[in-house]
C-alpha cells in the first residue's frame, strides 16, 4: 500500500514536471506560449522580456481582458539551444494548445520556431533575437519582429557615425554570426554614407572571450581614429572593463551596439568607462516623457528594478497582441495578423507601429555616449541623438527582395 503511494507520488511529480498541472487553459482565454532562455548568461535579458510581458498582461486582464477573454501564458526554457527550443514550441502548441508563440533571444531558435509557426499557421512574435534573416530571407506571414535587428542597428549607427570626423577605422568583435552581422552592417552602410572612411585592420575573438587586454593593446599600437566593437552579452562589460584598465576609452573612441543600454551599464556601477558610443532602442530615462516615466515607475514598483530594453519589448509585445485582437474584433489568428499590419499604438516612448509589408516593429534608435549622472549610481546614455526608423530601416522592397531568393 505504502509502495503504491510512493509510486503514485513519483508519478504525479513527473506529470507535474511535464506541466500537466500548470494552470489548465480553458476556452475563454487567449493562450500565449513563451519559449526563451531562462538559464545561462542570456537570462539577464530574457527575464526582463518575461517580466515586461507579464506586467502588461496583468494590466490587460485586470481591465477585463481582450474581448472578454483573459490572456494566459506558459513558459519553457530552451537553454539557448535551437533544437530544445523547437521541441518546446511544438510541445506548447500540441499539448498546451497555445494560440500564439513568443520568444526567443537565440537567433537560431527564433528561425527554427519561425519555420514551425509558418507551417502551423501560428503567429510568432520574436522578442530579442537580432538576426536580420528573421524578417528578411526567412520572413513570412506569421512572424513578427518586435525589436531591431543587426542590419537596422548597424545602419542607425552608420547614420550617426557618418557625421563624425573619424577616418581610420578598426573593426573587432565576436567571431560568430551576431558579431559579423553587426560589424558588416555598420561598415557597409558607413562606407556608403561617408566614402572617406578607411579600414586599417580587423580582429576577431572567440565567443565568450573574457580577457580583451591583448586585443586592445594590439589595436592601440595600430592607432586607429575609431573602433567598431561588435560584441554582445557579458562580453560588452568585459570589453568596457579592459578598455578602462588600458586607458583605451580615454584615447580612442569606440562604438558598441547596446553599449549604452542599462543591461551593460548597470552591473559596472560608477566604474564603467565614460565616452563610449552606443545605440539602444529603449532607455527608461529618455525621452523624459510622462508616459515613459509612468512605465519605468510601474515596472520599478512591481519588480524593484529599472526596466531594461528587453522589458520594454516584452511589454509592447503583450500590448500589440491585445490591441491586435481588439481591432480584429474576434479571436482568430488570420484576423489578428490582418489587424496588426500597420497597427499604431501609443508606447512609453511615443507611437509605434508594425510595418505591414514585413511585420517589423518600427522603433527609433538612440545613439548616445556613456556619461555619469548624479541621479543614478550607474552611467547613462547622454547626448542622445534620435535616429528615426525612416532613416535606417531597410525599405519594404529591400526586405521583400531578400525573401524571394
Amino acid at each position: 500500500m505504502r509502495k503504491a503511494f510512493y509510486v503514485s507520488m513519483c508519478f504525479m511529480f513527473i506529470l507535474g514536471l511535464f506541466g500537466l498541472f500548470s494552470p489548465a487553459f480553458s476556452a475563454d482565454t487567449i493562450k500565449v506560449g513563451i519559449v526563451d532562455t531562462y538559464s545561462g548568461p542570456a537570462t539577464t535579458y530574457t527575464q526582463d522580456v518575461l517580466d515586461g510581458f507579464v506586467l502588461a498582461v496583468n494590466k490587460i486582464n485586470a481591465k477585463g481582458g481582450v474581448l472578454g477573454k483573459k490572456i494566459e501564458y506558459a513558459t519553457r526554457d530552451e537553454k539557448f539551444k535551437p533544437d530544445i527550443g523547437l521541441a518546446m514550441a511544438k510541445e506548447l502548441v500540441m499539448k498546451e494548445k497555445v494560440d500564439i508563440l513568443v520568444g526567443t533571444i537565440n537567433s537560431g531558435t527564433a528561425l527554427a520556431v519561425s519555420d514551425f509557426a509558418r507551417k502551423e499557421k501560428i503567429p510568432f512574435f520574436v522578442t530579442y533575437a537580432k538576426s536580420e534573416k528573421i524578417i528578411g530571407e526567412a520572413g513570412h506571414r506569421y512572424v513578427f519582429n518586435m525589436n531591431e535587428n543587426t542590419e537596422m542597428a548597424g545602419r542607425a549607427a552608420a547614420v550617426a557615425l557618418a557625421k563624425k570626423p573619424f577616418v581610420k577605422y578598426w573593426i573587432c568583435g565576436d567571431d560568430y554570426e551576431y558579431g559579423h552581422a553587426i560589424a558588416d552592417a555598420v561598415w557597409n552602410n558607413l562606407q556608403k554614407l561617408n566614402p572617406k572612411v578607411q579600414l586599417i585592420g580587423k580582429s576577431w575573438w572567440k565567443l565568450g572571450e573574457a580577457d580583451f587586454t591583448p586585443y586592445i593593446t594590439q589595436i592601440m599600437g595600430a592607432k586607429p581614429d575609431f573602433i567598431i566593437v561588435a560584441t554582445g552579452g557579458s562580453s560588452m562589460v568585459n570589453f568596457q572593463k579592459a578598455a578602462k584598465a588600458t586607458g583605451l576609452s580615454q584615447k580612442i573612441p569606440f562604438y558598441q551596439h547596446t553599449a549604452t543600454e542599462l543591461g551593460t551599464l548597470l552591473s559596472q556601477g560608477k566604474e564603467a568607462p565614460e565616452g563610449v558610443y552606443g545605440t539602444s532602442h529603449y532607455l527608461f530615462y529618455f525621452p523624459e516623457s510622462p508616459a515613459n516615466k509612468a512605465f519605468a515607475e510601474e515596472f520599478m514598483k512591481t519588480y524593484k528594478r529599472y526596466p531594461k530594453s528587453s522589458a520594454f519589448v516584452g511589454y509592447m509585445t503583450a500590448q500589440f497582441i491585445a490591441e491586435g485582437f481588439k481591432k480584429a474584433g474576434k479571436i482568430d489568428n488570420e484576423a489578428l495578423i490582418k489587424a496588426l499590419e500597420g497597427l499604431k499604438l501609443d508606447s512609453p516612448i511615443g507611437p509605434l507601429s508594425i510595418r505591414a509589408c514585413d511585420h517589423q516593429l518600427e522603433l527609433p534608435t538612440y545613439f548616445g555616449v556613456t556619461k555619469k549622472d548624479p541621479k543614478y549610481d550607474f552611467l547613462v546614455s547622454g547626448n542622445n541623438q534620435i535616429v528615426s526608423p525612416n532613416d535606417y530601416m531597410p525599405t519594404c522592397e529591400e526586405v521583400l527582395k531578400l525573401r524571394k531568393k
Partner: protein
Amino acid sequence: MDFIYAVVPPQVLNQIFVGLSRTTILFIVSSGMSLILGVLRIPNVAHGSLYMIGAFMSFTIAKVFGGGATGFWMALVLVPVAVAVLSLIVERGLFQFLYEREHLMLLLLTFACSLVFGDLVKLVWGAEYKSVPVPHMFQGFVPLFGGIPFPLYNMFLLIVGPVVAVILWLIVNKTKIGKIARAAAVDREMVGAVGINVSWVFAVVFMIGCLLAGLGGALVAPTVSVTLGMDHTLIMEAFLIVIIGGLGNIWGALLGALIFGLSQSLGILIWPQFGIIFPYLAVIIVLLFRPTGLLKSTW
C-alpha cells in the same frame, strides 16, 4: 631601451607582458586541476564552477566591504578558503564513495556537480551580470614599451603568478603532505599499506586544488564581468593546458599555461583576424610531437 627595440619591437614586448599576466590566472586554475587529476585521478569538470563561485563570492565581498582595498584583500583571502570548505563538503559527502569505482563514474559525478553549482549560483546571485571594481590602487595603467599602456592590475597579476608557483613548489616538495601526495599519485596502494589514511590525503589535496580554483576566480573577478557560463570557457582552456603540460604535472600546467597565454597574445599581433586559433594550433603542435604532454604524466 632602444637597443632592445631593435631586436624585439615594443609591440611584441608589450604583447608578451599582456600574455604573461593572462597566463597567471590560467596557471593558478589549471595547476589546481592538474593536482587533483594527478593525485585523485579525477578529471574535475566542476573545477570551472568553483572558479565561477569564487568570482561571485568576491562580488559579494566587494559589495559588503565597498569596492576599496579592504574588500579586495578580504576577497583574496576569504574566497579561496570558502571555496576550499565547500569542496571539502562535496568531497567528503560525494566523491569519497566513488574512488574505488571506475573513473567514468567520477567524471559523471563532477559533471553533475558542475550543473548543480551552475544552478546554485543562479539561485544565490541571480542571472544578472555582476561586476567587481578594480581596487583603486590598481586602477589605471603605466606606459610600457613604446608608450603602449599596460594596466596596473595586470602588473599585479604578474607578481601573483610567480608567488603562487613558489608556494605550490614549497608545498609539493618541502611539506609532508606534499610528499605523501606525490607518493599517492604514483602508487596509492603502497601509501595505504604504510599506514597513511589515503582517503584524507585525497580530501586535503582536493581542497588545495579547489582553493586554487577559488583564488583564480577571486583574481579574475576585477578584470571581467562575473557571469553565469564563465565556467565553461575556462574549463575548456584549463583541460587543454593540463593535457599539453602532461596529466597531473603541476609544472606541466605552468608550461601549458605559458604556451597557451603567449601563443594567444602573440598570435593576435601576427594575424588579428584569426588570433583565436593560435593557442589551439599550439596545442595541436605539442600533441603531435608529444602525445602524452610536454612533461612527465603521472597517469
